[in-house]
């Protein structure tokens, strides 16, 4: 399993389709909706206005990249992740995988697709069955899919455990014998068991302490390089998302507000919500923290049952409140802004996007050269190989 063969052999999927090159679209989500139905209370329940958890989001995922999805709780980012994997049935829109519409796929077809798309969950306590051994948990994908590895399931599972930095001899232990970080490693081993192409990681490190968080982030990056994975990384922590993502989508109340390459988004956020979000992150640097201005949002997230008209953000938008004229405001309250491209690879859903105020920016250094959007991971194989050769202290081979 080396990272160097990824361009040599034409990679195919379980369904026989050919995988695209690195940097080309692997998954395309168009106008995806997930509305949860509600019923009125009372003697005769009737359908009521649904909860619009995800309300028309559009993005594409390129092979080998990490797309970060950020937003406050309740913005629909987890629902979006689950709907993409059809753990929740979408109520509208399409999901195309390798150019094929997989929105309505069910049964055996879907089971085959599952081998290519996996999920890592947030809660390392709730996502592992406490009554199964680690061996059974990580081996479950083989059993469910009826796949018989050459050397047997046990050997394969032990390899996987070693790969994620666990002791293979812990095959027969139960989840409660492991710490939070180790459990998250078990969840990762299970997700990569069938060598998927795409992993949706829903807040995989938010339940962990900072020192452990860094170990798991490094592990996720290593296995991405080793197994040529494409990630959707859902998190509320903007610093972690900046570290791991190539592109970032910002969600608010079921809609995508802004999508851009990572450095562009953090250095030049155009949407007032993105700007407020970035300015709210506390900086671990007292001098900078004192100098920086914050854009304070007032109030709370509106209810997704009854979202504001027009632009859903207008009720809390600082620009709407202070800068816009009445006629401009009418547009914000009356017309839903569409996702539009304002620069290559940078889309914004705002009628009046603009550069951020200088006081909120925190990067003094020039962010140039840190990221070249044309060169996705597949191109940088040499570095990738050395990186997996692990100076990670969490690596079991280091001892």
């Amino acid at each position, binding site marked *: 399993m080396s990272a160097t063969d990824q361009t040599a052999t034409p990679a195919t999927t379980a369904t026989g389709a050919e995988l695209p090159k690195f940097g080309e679209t692997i998954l395309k989500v168009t106008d995806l909706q997930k509305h949860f139905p509600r019923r009125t209370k009372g003697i005769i329940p009737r359908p009521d206005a649904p909860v619009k958890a995800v309300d028309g989001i559009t993005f594409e995922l390129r092979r080998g990249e990490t797309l970060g999805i950020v937003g406050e*709780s309740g913005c629909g980012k987890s629902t979006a992740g689950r709907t993409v994997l059809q753990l929740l049935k979408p109520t509208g829109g399409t999901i195309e995988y390798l150019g094929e519409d997989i929105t309505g796929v069910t049964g055996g077809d879907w089971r085959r697709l599952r081998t290519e798309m996996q999920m890592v969950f947030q809660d390392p306590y709730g996502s592992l069955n406490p009554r199964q051994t680690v061996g059974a948990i990580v081996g479950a994908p083989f059993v469910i899919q009826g796949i018989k590895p050459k050397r047997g399931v046990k050997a394969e599972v032990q390899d996987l455990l070693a790969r994620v930095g666990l002791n293979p001899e812990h095959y027969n232990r139960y989840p409660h014998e492991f710490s939070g970080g180790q459990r998250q490693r078990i969840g990762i081993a299970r997700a990569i068991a069938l060598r998927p192409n795409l992993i949706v990681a829903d807040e995989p490190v938010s339940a962990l302490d900072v020192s452990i968080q860094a170990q798991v982030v490094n592990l996720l990056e290593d296995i991405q390089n080793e197994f040529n994975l494409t990630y959707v990384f859902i998190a509320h922590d903007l610093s972690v998302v900046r570290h791991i993502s190539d592109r970032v989508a910002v969600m608010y109340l079921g809609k995508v507000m802004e999508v851009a390459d990572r450095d562009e988004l953090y250095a030049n956020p155009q949407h007032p919500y993105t700007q407020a979000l970035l300015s709210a992150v506390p900086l671990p640097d*007292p001098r900078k923290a004192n100098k920086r201005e*914050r854009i304070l*949002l007032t109030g709370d997230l509106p209810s997704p049952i009854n979202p504001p008209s027009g632009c859903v953000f207008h009720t809390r938008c600082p620009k709407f409140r202070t800068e816009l004229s009445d006629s401009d405001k009418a547009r914000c309250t009356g017309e839903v802004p569409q996702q539009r491209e304002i620069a290559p690879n940078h889309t914004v859903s705002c009628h009046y996007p603009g550069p951020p105020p200088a006081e909120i920016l925190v*990067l003094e250094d020039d962010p140039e050269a840190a990221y070249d959007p044309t060169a996705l991971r597949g191109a940088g194989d040499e570095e990738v190989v050395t990186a997996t050769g692990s100076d990670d202290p969490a690596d079991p081979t280091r001892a």
Partner: protein
Amino acid sequence: MSTSATTDHAARGASGSGDVPALLSVRELRVHFPTEDGVVKAVDDLSFDLAPGATLGIVGESGSGKSVTSQAIMGLHRGTRAKVGGQILFDGVDLLTISDEELRRRRGQDVAMVFQDPLSALHPYYTVGNQLVEAYRVHHDVSKQAARARVIEMLDRVGIPSPQARFGNYPHEFSGGMRQRAMIAMALINDPRLIIADEPTTALDVTVQAQILDLLVGLQKEFGSSIIIITHDLGVVAEMADDILVMYGGKAVERGDADTIFYSPEHPYAWGLLRSMPRMDRLRTERLVPIAGNPPSLINLPTGCSFHPRCEYATAELGCFTTAPPFDAESDHPVRCLIPHTERLDIFENSVRPSL
């Protein structure tokens, strides 16, 4: 001012200014829980001072003893099996030796607490307003109407819109940020001199967190209270704290003012914490530098320096594996590390700072 050389040294750094008498002095605090598996030394030999109006940040990973410290100050270990030792001097009075009656009088009045999870800290069965009225009337002999007016004033002060209407709401009818505001209102209603905020914003989103931190700072300026803020988020302490206490395995491993801890920390654990987090204000690094291993079990702390199994600089020659490090007398602020002071500065300058 001191009882012994070590406490004298220990008292420096966290008090900020030497001329103002400390509001709170914790001396050699120990909180041990006897369990079937052995004694859990949740807090062991902890000392610090807090000046009036100052903010102390306590940082550390889960299980480092941060929350147990705050519970001990509030006297919440009374009547449990916990063994509490040392001194907690509040304005010169030892909170560990006063009567239950006296403690009850001071709790809320002198020292108030903001808990991490307001949904479980607020009573689900009573309206928010009634809970605040109760908190106020415990310490003030006033009519219900007068208390109600005061509560509405406080709810308004912490930024809850239409406080009159919100007075009669139950906690579940509030959003997370609003509940935390109500908690802060409850903590402040008796105008306490010390507020202990235990992970006050951990359950909140960044935008709401910014609102709450802003509120706390504003109220502190207005009321002149001291704050102890307990968190694992170094960003939050950087924004809030004057002094910082870094805890590991139940002990304070380093203590100093915010500038010292962020710009010239000396303990390898503090280095590890600073290095392991991804930072938005720096150029993106290719890889994070985690601290190896896992936090220790408090029942079976490693011998010697409890950080040694995870410390890349620990050696047998220094005695890291066998000797529990005292505070290093050579350093200008309290650091529990056996690496010689000059060498530590050297390591920080040459190999840690460049990777921060």
